């Protein structure tokens, strides 16, 4: 099934949106076919691009994770709508999701780490889907490869840090497409309609932007640079400001007055097999304060689990100031106390102790690491810090 949308050629069904409540969603055409020469060209380019995405080294080749993200999309926009969408999770630790005019949705792992509930993830996916449904990529002549929001989602950090994120390498794989401000707002509002009609609360859409601003502030504070959030977009801005979005999305959501379970617990339960890897990638970004903010925000829902304690320990251990080593050692021990005694915990704790001058205590934990993982890729190196192992060798 390479091209489910094209395969459904001619099946132009009009869906009225399942059991529309007060505000029915706009009619949606299932199995939509590109209508004009421009559109057909764009689709076939997107199809070509999709082939390369499928075999891309950046793709997370995990069916479970891809299926879960798709499930959240379907729960948000409804199964009739999500039928023609293929979801690809890309291993990039930044906040972004994109959608191509042919129905290919790409979701970066950094978004998965930052969403705090199925509803927040659904809010972002719904926004992307709204661009697709409104065929924004066709309306903008700047379309070259795919409809994407790389600027939208990286703009927040860029604004706060006053960095031109468009120069980021990440934007290369993001897309070459830019929507305009009106289209962004349209997608925000239609995305909000999806959420309001779903079992998720529409208020979560505003929260996404609030949390991004908070993270950007934390990063800026940690780097001792100015925070910057504007209320209104400037003349040249292609997107509404994040503050503006947080504001009008909350206002609209209050007008809808819907409630629901955001699915925070179920989100982290589903994400748990992948969370350690997402945390590891984040910790290695060298954004101490931003990472602290993220860890605390996850812990607010899940409590300080072994995985979170371990990640925080690594954060301090890698910065490696003398005081950091005391904190790291404590956090590793706390992780062990809650039953998180992974080989990596033993390794991290052992090395932290060795670095703090407690060589023999450290060697004890490193020995446990080697016992647990005798074939570890660094086993012979770690043996250097375990005296009797070293001589025995």
């Amino acid at each position: 099934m390479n091209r489910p949308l094209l395969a459904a050629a001619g099946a132009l069904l009009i869906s009225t949106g399942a059991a529309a409540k007060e505000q029915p969603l706009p009619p949606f055409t299932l199995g939509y076919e590109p209508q004009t020469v421009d559109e057909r060209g764009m689709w076939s380019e997107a199809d070509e691009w999709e082939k390369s995405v499928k075999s891309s080294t950046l793709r997370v080749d995990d069916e479970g994770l891809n299926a879960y993200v798709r499930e959240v999309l379907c729960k948000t926009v409804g199964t009739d709508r999500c039928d023609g969408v293929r979801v690809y999770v890309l291993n990039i630790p930044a906040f972004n999701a994109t959608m191509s005019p042919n129905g290919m949705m790409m979701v970066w792992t950094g978004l998965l780490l930052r969403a705090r509930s199925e509803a927040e993830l659904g809010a972002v996916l719904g926004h992307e889907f709204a661009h697709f449904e409104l065929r924004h990529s066709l309306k903008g002549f700047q379309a070259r490869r795919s409809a994407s929001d790389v600027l939208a989602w990286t703009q927040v950090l860029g604004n706060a840090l006053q960095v031109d994120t468009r120069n980021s390498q990440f934007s290369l794989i993001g897309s070459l497409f830019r929507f305009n401000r009106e289209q962004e707002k349209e997608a925000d509002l239609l995305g909000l309609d999806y959420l309001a009609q779903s079992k998720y609360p529409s208020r979560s859409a505003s929260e996404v932007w609030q949390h991004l601003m908070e993270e950007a502030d934390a990063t800026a504070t940690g780097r001792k640079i100015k925070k910057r959030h504007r209320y209104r977009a400037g003349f040249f801005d292609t997107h509404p400001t994040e503050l503006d979005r947080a504001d009008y999305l909350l206002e609209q959501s209050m007008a809808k007055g819907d409630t629901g379970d955001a699915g925070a617990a179920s989100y982290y339960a589903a994400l748990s097999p992948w969370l350690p890897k997402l945390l590891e990638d984040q910790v290695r970004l060298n954004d101490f304060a931003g990472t602290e903010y993220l860890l605390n925000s996850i812990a607010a829902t899940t409590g300080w689990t072994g995985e979170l304690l371990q990640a925080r320990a690594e954060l301090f251990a890698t910065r490696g100031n003398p005081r950091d080593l005391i904190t790291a050692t404590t956090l590793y021990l706390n992780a062990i106390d809650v039953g998180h005694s992974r080989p990596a915990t033993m390794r991290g704790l052992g090395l932290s102790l060795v670095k703090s001058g407690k060589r023999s205590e450290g060697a004890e934990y490193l020995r446990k690491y080697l016992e647990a993982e005798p074939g570890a890729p660094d086993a012979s190196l770690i043996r250097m810090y375990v005296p009797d192992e070293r001589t025995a060798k």
Partner: protein
Amino acid sequence: MIVRGACAALLVLALTTPAGAHKLVEPGSPEKVADGAFRATSGTTWNRLQQSEGKYQEVWTIDGHKLNRLAFYGGVPAGKPLVKERDKKRDPLPKVTESMLLPDVPNLVERTYRTQYDIPIFNIGKQEPATLGGKEGIRFEYTYVDPGDEVERRGEAYAAIEGGKLYLVTFEAPSLHYFARDAAEVRSIVKSVTLRP
């Protein structure tokens, strides 16, 4: 398919680099590297890139740095990053620390790459004791993907910590073809390395 296309494009770039842009490293005689932090002897002719990222680094290549990149980082002291930060305030790099041990070196390289070059995928492989310039050190392997060309590159690195300073030599090339082609030459250069006394 992506890989082949990208390599072809890179090859063109490499071949069109004006010869005068690089100083040559002639085989057979010890050369001062990274401002004299190292001496190293090659078995074949390399190009010394004129542009370096900061005062501790020197880069050699045969066909262009995207195809084979041998980088020397000489005597990086505590408190300094491996390379000059592209933006000190907004993209700060991890620093060499006083407490740093050999097992921390791969992680330092990974974190540096993630920030400086926006590398989203970086995997550290085998890590083992080795010597560099006669000093106790580490040898480690890694792979990473540059999102600019989505080519997977393989890396092999050697490091030692001497007098509170980090000495690091890394070699990187596309996993397909190029890495294997030059690995033996690189290992022989690494064997020849001496550190500034």
